[in-house]
């Protein structure tokens, strides 16, 4: 089946690569192109043959037109690119919309380069199968919920454990549509709860009690702070961001950390507050935020899902930065995100694992990204 499809479209991969190159050239030279994208891959398998015939007939004039390049992508999508005024593309689009039923009309999309370069690159990556994300492993049967005894044991273990294996570090990078190389702005460090639980609480469901997990987070965070504040770390300094529980800021460890920082260092440290911690103790959060602001730290709302970003309002929170968690429903959020996206410079899109995330971010004006895909780009 697959070999047949490949035979039918020889050079599908080559077409995708050529299209990606064309998009980059258009962006680099700021050349305007009109684009018609037929999402044949998105049509249902039953309807496909009839639709495909209709679409190909409607495409005939486009294929024949001079100055139009047609790319048949590996997944069956067809992309036609032409310089404006591309009458052939317009006519083909009208004809296609006329022949398709309303449900399938979304399969025909028209846009322009270089404005929608990110989107088109995402389409290309998707056609190559790069955007397919393996489904998350099925959640195993959760262990017994954490209790006070488990917490006491975990705290003892955590006090001596090697923290390196229980934390993750990812770069927050500035990516811009012009194709400049990814530029790391600061390093996000945080507890990897999965690894931490494995190391100090094997078999116990650590997330079963947000209160006990928060107390454990305080301990892990103070250790992380002590590590960041080491004199050796000051010599080889890189800007850093980390999430903290508001109560952490009132601990002696934090005060020691703060007192040991060289002048001017605090504005290179971004402290993130999680939505759940903020809501668990709004007054405590407000106090921690005000004291951290007075000391000169940069403050962020940590890893907010789109739904909670709609509940917490940027103008009220008094934070500098929103770390917005990417999810596939983000492009559909619409008005809920408007207050946050009014200042796209103050947004970091995190959990970026596919090109569509970056594409959406660019369209929303966001240029700071973090996630596995960003890490892969940096390592190339």
């Amino acid at each position, binding site marked *: 089946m697959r070999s047949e499809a490949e035979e039918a479209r020889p050079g599908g991969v080559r077409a995708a690569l050529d299209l990606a190159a064309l998009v980059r050239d258009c962006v680099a030279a700021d050349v305007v192109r009109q684009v018609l994208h037929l999402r044949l891959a998105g049509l249902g398998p039953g309807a496909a043959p009839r639709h495909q015939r209709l679409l190909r007939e409607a495409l005939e004039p486009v294929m024949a037109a001079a100055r139009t390049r047609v790319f048949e992508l590996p997944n069956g999508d067809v992309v036609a690119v032409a310089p404006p005024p591309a009458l052939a593309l317009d006519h083909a689009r009208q004809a296609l919309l006329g022949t398709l039923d309303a449900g399938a009309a979304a399969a025909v999309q028209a846009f322009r380069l270089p404005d929608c370069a990110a989107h088109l690159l995402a389409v290309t990556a998707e056609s190559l199968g790069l955007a397919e994300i393996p489904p998350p492993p099925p959640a195993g049967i959760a262990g017994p919920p954490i209790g006070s005894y488990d917490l006491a044991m975990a705290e003892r273990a955590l006090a001596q454990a090697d923290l390196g294996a229980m934390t993750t570090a990812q770069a927050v990078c500035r990516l811009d549509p012009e194709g400049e190389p990814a530029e790391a702005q600061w390093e996000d460090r945080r507890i990897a709860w999965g690894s931490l639980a494995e190391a100090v609480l094997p078999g116990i469901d650590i997330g079963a009690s947000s209160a006990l997990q928060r107390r454990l987070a305080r301990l892990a965070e103070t250790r992380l702070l002590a590590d960041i504040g080491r004199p050796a770390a000051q010599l080889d300094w890189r800007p850093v961001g980390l999430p903290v529980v508001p109560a952490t800021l009132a601990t002696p460890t934090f005060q020691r950390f703060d007192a040991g920082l060289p002048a001017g260092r605090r504005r290179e440290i971004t402290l993130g507050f999680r939505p*759940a911690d903020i809501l668990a103790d709004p007054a405590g959060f407000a106090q921690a935020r005000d004291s951290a602001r007075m000391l000169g730290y940069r403050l962020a709302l940590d890893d907010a899902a789109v739904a*909670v970003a709609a509940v*917490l309002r940027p103008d009220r929170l008094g934070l500098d930065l929103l770390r917005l968690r990417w999810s596939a429903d983000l492009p559909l959020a619409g008005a809920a995100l408007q207050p946050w996206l009014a200042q796209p410079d103050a947004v970091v899109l995190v959990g970026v694992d596919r090109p569509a995330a970056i594409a959406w971010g660019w369209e929303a004006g966001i240029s700071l990204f973090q996630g596995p895909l960003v890490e892969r780009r940096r390592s190339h």
Partner: protein
Amino acid sequence: MLDGPQEELLLLGAEAGRTERLRGLLDRLLGAQRTAIWSLQGDAAALLAYAAGAETATAEGPGLAGLDAWLRGLGLAPLVQRVLGRRIADPPRPAFLRLGINRVLLAGLMGPLGRDADLLEHAQRALSARLLLAVGDPAQGRTLIRGPLPGRLHLPVPPAPIRGGDGGVGGGMLVATLGLETVADPAALAARRAGLAAQGWSVEIDGLDAAALRLLAPEALGADWLRLRWSPELPAAAQAGALQRVEPARLILAAAETPQAVEWARAMGIGLVEGAGLEAPLAPAAPVPSSLLARLGQEPAGVPA
């Protein structure tokens, strides 16, 4: 006036109305609810537990590892706080009953651990889960509810549904109270609310004080009831937080110990208040329907995970 073992002050033998007013003043002065009132008729058990707790509290309270075991051995009844909610009317009439865990008393019993907000929260949740089961047990339920039920019964429920339960049936009379933290996951909250609604429970979000209203959009909170906590800063925070966008019939004003609080509630169109600010004789209410107690067999199970 006596000194307690944990640097608290005890005022003994005061007249009930004056005590309530004094309490309102003190809570305002201290900026939080730091006081508790016991009556010799109603709260003898709580008073005895306090005296017993005072003896053990000098002995440090429980250790961290043994906290859960200590909580399981703790008598529940003395820690249960009953709050009568009333509807502003002429005369004011009882509207609902709220049962919860007395956090101040619990913190005192916990000793040094009680000063850790996260551990106190954990202990309160553990006892709330026990309270839920106890209310569902007909024998204990009657003692806890103590007399006529004036209307809906508000009970704290665990933040996540318990798996595998059959679920008690609320019949529209039961309100599940959830902490503000659950709002951080709106999808889970919506699922929880739907699961509870299917069992006849409505959902209340607790913890909306002046600080909370300064941060969030109250109209975006997905719950049937929102419980506000009065403080002199609340009116300004409510105005800044656009509280008027919320249907006032969904709001309950707690800790309304002063006439100003009640006056503000009236101006906002809030009909339900808790606290002594609404001084009035209580009208006799209907007896507890025995069918309701029987249906309260189990903890609400929410949606199956």
